[in-house]
């Protein structure tokens, strides 16, 4: 009997390793990313596994009650309802939501099932964190993923952090930034708030919300004016530089847009461009805007102009949110991409999959995303491990509309989404099944089964295979067999196997054949665009006109260190909840005084989308004129914006015009 089994943390996308023992956990000191360390959520990971509220049996809604049913009944019913929806209304009436918390194998088979049923309405929560990254980096660099591994940050001489509070949201990343600082690296943090990440900064750019493009173009302006660009890199590795016109973005003008001093803009530009190796780290402060795709494009432009990409310590690092969000996207659990980043609008690319899957035809054109589902006339919705009601504002506000059709939710807890369903299936949690997770740095790691699932809970893969079998498709229920099929479908995963992904630290894709050691740094010699060059793409600042006389302030949203996304996991962890029990809203002291709000007061925050209650926290670290609310509490989602980035369908969750007053 093995006394400890290696596993990967189920929370964020850093992909930290630790051991599960019979009674608890142990740190894994030889893991390449976390070296034994874990953040508070990682330390509390077992609370979820052992929780009394875990779903144990399949349950069907009959009238207002939940009735325990057998797996056979439940699975037959799913097949029957899906089949009926298809017969009566066609493939447009069915939809699927995959999960950035489920394995690659599960997401791969889930999207395959959706597409074999004739729909591209399959999506996952990546839509709400990095869909702009997917669109922009795929177009510009060819590969929509982090260019360098996390540990590479220790080799950087300048780290530019844009819109990421990584010290709270990816604490282990801070370890590598601190290592770089030990070597004398300069750290620049651009964020309207003074976060613990900003504590680490040598230069903190406290810019106005929504002015990222102006800042970046301003930096490029300085770089070009001072001749700090990399001429040879621009000439040999990129195209489109001639079209890049940033002459309007003088430090003085950018200063008036961003609220930063012109000197700080110049300093940031010089630090970034002059360093031997510079890295850009960004997160949802860049993506969750109606100009999210343009924001990412601007980041890429900056890196390309300076040639700061494709070397150790030098690259673009979008920090992704969930433990397998990179993998779920690689597997094509997206409304606009098939596995291996094949566009739904590219019949040639899809034809390869058609042959692999032995399918007659496969659907073309973008399917529905979660935001669109409440308003689509759906007859059947299958949700695998996502709590869209608590993570998606649009769905949250229109949740009742989801109930028009038959809804299946498979999850580990009775989430608010599951409560809407007609059928709820108990799923095995991460340590109770096998398969691969892909972390934010493209690191594919095999997890082993360390525990038995509670009651009759089953791995998602088994559930999918059983449903498929009833619909007349044969899908593998064994993760290794599924991975073998992924080898065929996703080029970057061609050489990935249980043995190399199961080794300590797994393997970083692209891994084109079984003996390949993996590719930690991308784009070292050529970019993965068809022409092998990166495409510099001009983008411009458009003012964020969100304020109005009724809603003069800007509400910012984000995460806090002790909670995670919709809270379906962390809110069930006693150690985390007791340390951070309720929603709060951060207010600058001068705003607070003007509004008559004191620390600890009950307040109401209103946006044009709704009202939420919270407790005020007065702190000078908040920028004047802005508020901040963590989005782990359902209240915040009820008032978040519904505006979309048209290129990626990312909702503008980061900012909303608002007002605040004291009251219950």
């Amino acid at each position, binding site marked *: 009997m093995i006394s400890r089994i290696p596993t990967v943390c189920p929370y964020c996308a850093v992909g930290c390793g630790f051991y599960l023992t019979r009674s*608890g956990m142990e740190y894994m000191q030889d893991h390449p990313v976390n070296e*034994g*360390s874990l953040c*508070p959520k*990682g*330390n509390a990971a077992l609370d979820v596994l052992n929780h009394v509220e875990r779903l144990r049996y399949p349950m069907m809604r009959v009238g207002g009650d939940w009735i325990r049913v057998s797996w056979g009944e439940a699975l037959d019913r799913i097949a029957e309802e899906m089949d009926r929806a298809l017969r009566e209304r066609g493939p447009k009436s069915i939809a699927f939501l995959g999960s950035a918390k489920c394995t690659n194998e599960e997401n791969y088979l889930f999207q395959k099932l959706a597409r074999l049923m004739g729909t591209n309405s399959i999506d996952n929560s990546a839509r709400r964190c990095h869909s702009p990254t997917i669109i922009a980096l795929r177009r510009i660099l060819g590969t929509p993923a982090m260019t360098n591994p996390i540990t590479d940050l220790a080799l950087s001489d300048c780290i530019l952090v844009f819109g990421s509070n990584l*010290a709270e949201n990816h604490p282990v990343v801070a*370890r590598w930034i*601190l290592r770089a600082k030990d070597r004398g690296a300069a750290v620049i943090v651009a964020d309207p708030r003074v976060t613990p990440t900003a504590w680490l900064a040598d230069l903190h750019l406290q810019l106005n919300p929504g002015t990222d493009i102006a800042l970046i173009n301003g930096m490029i302006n300085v770089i070009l004016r001072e001749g700090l660009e990399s001429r040879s890199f621009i000439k040999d590795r990129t195209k489109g530089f001639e079209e890049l016109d940033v002459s309007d973005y003088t430090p003085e003008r950018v200063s008036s847009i961003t609220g930063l001093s012109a000197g700080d803009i110049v300093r940031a530009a010089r630090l970034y461009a002059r360093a031997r190796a510079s890295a850009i780290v960004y997160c949802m402060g860049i993506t969750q805007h109606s100009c999210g795709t343009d924001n990412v494009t601007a980041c890429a432009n900056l890196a390309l102009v300076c040639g700061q990409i494709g070397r150790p310590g030098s690259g673009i690092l979008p920090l992704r949110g969930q433990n397998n969000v990179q993998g779920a996207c690689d597997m094509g659990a997206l409304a606009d991409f098939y596995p291996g980043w094949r566009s739904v609008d590219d019949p040639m690319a899809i034809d390869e999959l058609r042959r692999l899957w032995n399918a007659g035809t496969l659907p073309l054109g973008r399917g529905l995303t979660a935001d669109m589902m409440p308003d689509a006339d759906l007859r059947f919705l299958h949700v695998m491990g996502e709590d869209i009601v608590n993570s998606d504002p649009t769905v949250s506000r229109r949740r009742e509309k989801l109930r028009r059709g038959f809804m299946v939710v498979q999850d580990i807890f009775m989430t608010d989404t599951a409560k809407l369903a007609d059928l709820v299936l108990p799923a095995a949690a991460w340590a109770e099944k096998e398969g691969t997770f892909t972390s934010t740095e493209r690191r594919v790691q095999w997890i082993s089964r360390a525990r038995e699932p509670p009651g009759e809970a089953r791995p998602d893969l088994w559930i999918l295979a059983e449903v498929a079998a009833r619909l007349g498709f044969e899908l593998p229920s064994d993760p290794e067999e599924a991975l073998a099929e992924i080898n065929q479908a996703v080029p970057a995963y061609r050489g990935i196997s249980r043995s190399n992904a199961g080794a300590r630290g797994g393997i970083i894709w692209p891994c084109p054949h079984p003996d390949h050691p993996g590719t930690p740094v991308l784009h070292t010699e050529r970019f993965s665009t068809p022409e092998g060059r990166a495409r510099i793409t001009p983008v411009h600042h458009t003012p964020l006109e969100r304020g109005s006389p009724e809603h003069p302030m800007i509400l910012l949203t984000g995460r806090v260190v002790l909670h995670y996304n919709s809270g379906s996991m962390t809110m069930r962890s006693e150690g985390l909840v007791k340390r951070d029990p309720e929603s709060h809203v951060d207010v600058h002291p001068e705003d607070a005084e003007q509004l008559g709000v004191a620390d600890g007061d009950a307040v109401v925050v209103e946006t044009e989308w709704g009202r939420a209650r919270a407790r005020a926290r007065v702190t000078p670290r908040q920028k004047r004129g802005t508020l901040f609310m963590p989005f782990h509490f359902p209240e915040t989602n009820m008032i978040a914006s519904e505006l979309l980035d048209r290129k990626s369908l990312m909702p503008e969750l980061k900012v909303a015009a608002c007002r605040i007053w004291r009251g219950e």
Partner: protein
Amino acid sequence: MMAKIYLDPERCIGCRACELACEREHGHPRISVGTVSDLAAVPLYCHQCDVAPCVAICYTGSLRQDGDMVKFDSDLCTLCGLCLVACPFGAIELDSKIQRCDLCGSGTPVCVMTCPAEALVLEDLDTVTRSTRGRAAGLLAARLR
């Protein structure tokens, strides 16, 4: 000299992983993180003082100086609570027993192991001050060149 836990406040990101780890290990956290003016975070824990006031006040010998560490023997403890009064750090708590850092027995304490930012280290004092001096000298020397 024996290793103790030392803190570099400039590294601490206030994530409270040490608290959670300690609570998991001992049932009650013996290290507590607090933020100051939302600009810094400082974990607070027993310093294993060399001339410890808690040892001076303990009349049962339950707290005693053992080498460079303060050892605690719960069998001798009467739960009088005077060590809580004596400790200048407020690092001792009393629930159903005395809660105080014991460096997790042997090996590396869990708070040190789990700290993502390497703000807590288990070192002996000489190593800590030597590396600080090295850094200070390095910075000065780098500026001269």
